[in-house]
């Protein structure tokens, strides 16, 4: 069985939240360690620019 998934089930989640902030808030209420990523659409949502950036990075 997979180690990292097993670890998640046994130790419980520590979360990086990418998107809806309410999800992070409700995890924090349950005592979970959460970091909220201040996400914005990459390259202003321009698909071609996004692909280009991915190639460069």
């Amino acid at each position, binding site marked *: *069985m*997979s*180690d*990292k*998934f*097993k*670890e*998640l*089930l*046994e*130790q*419980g*989640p*520590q*979360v*990086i*939240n*990418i*998107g*809806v*902030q*309410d*999800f*992070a*808030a*409700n*995890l924090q*209420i*349950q005592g*979970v*360690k*959460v*970091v*909220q*990523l*201040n*996400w*914005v*659409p*990459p*390259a*202003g*949502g*321009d698909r071609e620019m*996004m692909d280009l950036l*991915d190639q460069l990075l």
Partner: protein
Amino acid sequence: MHKGMVIRKNEYHDSVFLMRVAKRISEQEGILQAVLFMGTEKNKGFLAEIGFTAGELAPASPGDLILAVEATTPEILTDVLKNMDGWLQPEPGSGTAAAVRSLDEALTRLPRANLAVISVPGFYAAREAQQALERGLNVFIFSDNVPVESERALKEYARERGLIVMGPDCGTAIIGGIGIGFANVVRRGPVGVIGASGTGIQEFTCLVHQAGSGISQAIGIGSRDLSDELGGISLLCALEALEKDNRTETIALLSKPPGPLALSNLLPKILQCQKPVVVCFLGGKKEPAPPDRLFQQARTIDEAVALAVRNVQGQLPPDFSSTAGDLEVLVSRERRAMNPSQRYVRGIFAGGTFCYQAQQIFNDAGLAAYSNAPIAGNLRLSDPLQSKEHSLVDMGADEFTAGRPHPMIDSRQRRERLLAEAKDPMVAGILLDFLLGFNSAADPVGELAPAIAEAKGEFKKRGGFLSVVASVCGTDGDPQSLCEQVARLEAEGVVVLPSSARAARFAAMLALQLKGGLSDVR
């Protein structure tokens, strides 16, 4: 009527926040409609449908924020559009997001992170998920509209590295006692569940809790995992994990019927599991499988709960032994004051799985029902906004949620639908579901209760009686409190039953009795 819009370049807010703000704006005096979302092609398409011109929409890109409003006067319209900053203020107590700009920066702040929860628009979700997997994180993808080929690539990548992808389109999980997404507060215990539907997992976990048992893990796999294209990649990963998980004594598997290829591959593996597995393929038939104490099949979610709880407690929970006879007494009581023209049942669902399950229950009772999301053998509503005869409507389907909040967050559309149904004198019963838990509306029953009273009042005026039957999926540990929500419904004269399946059986029995048929609803 006066329409207008504002486009804010390069400004992003998450969809749930925007829905809540749009709801607040819609509730202002003189506002007929308010939408607030990012300028994706799909969203622009919605605005074009409600009368905004291509010229107005052209400047908006996917990275831009759009507020579009219809108001009764030009003054109200101008006031709302001018106050964009005010509307977008964070709600009190919501805190402010730390300025963490990249996944790597987030990992330096939380080096032992083991899960990325992703709820960005579907267009970007696979990219974010891939980056998380590459950094050794398991992934929960709430977003939908992720291409199936991307889903397969992500799941295969994860499998090779000992990780899991829950989703895309994964609404709910409970991992190590922690609810993720739309989850309820339930007791920990020996029952594990793997589900392709978020509302299905919510109903299952709440009913296990009500039955006195508890949940070891609830693992969402996404709505398409059991399709032939995916072959149950995440299901197998979850099944293997729960088979080895010391806390889990029995495993339930909830899904729509798998694709035929996926099923032929999955069934032998499910049969090999060394722990009892309860399978509930909603809308499907029971699979031919050798009688085996380790492999059990259920038709409905509450039946799956009964089998799972019996596996760990040795007997059926007492509340699960109520019979068709008990329901019949209730139905007869509700029928008493109806007039002869009242014949049909209308289901107005927030949970798509509950709509699906209700259709199956109607079919099993020999009743045809119309739906906007019909299961095999049912009839499609030609206009989703207009019910016919018996209709079971999924108000969370795309045609209702494009540009508008999902009914689990905002009941406005369900309220309007309920009042529209009440104008039809041939309606006899309304079937409703309510979902509590993290991230759902703060008071789902309170949002609908006045409309229920109004609808019942309309029938009384006409010399009839409207029967309203509901189920509330939740627990007393939930932020909204099950007990209070049920009490509020009962105060409005609603018949509240302990599961969505039982409420649907009540509705089917009512339909059969009005038709003069037998009450063979199990």
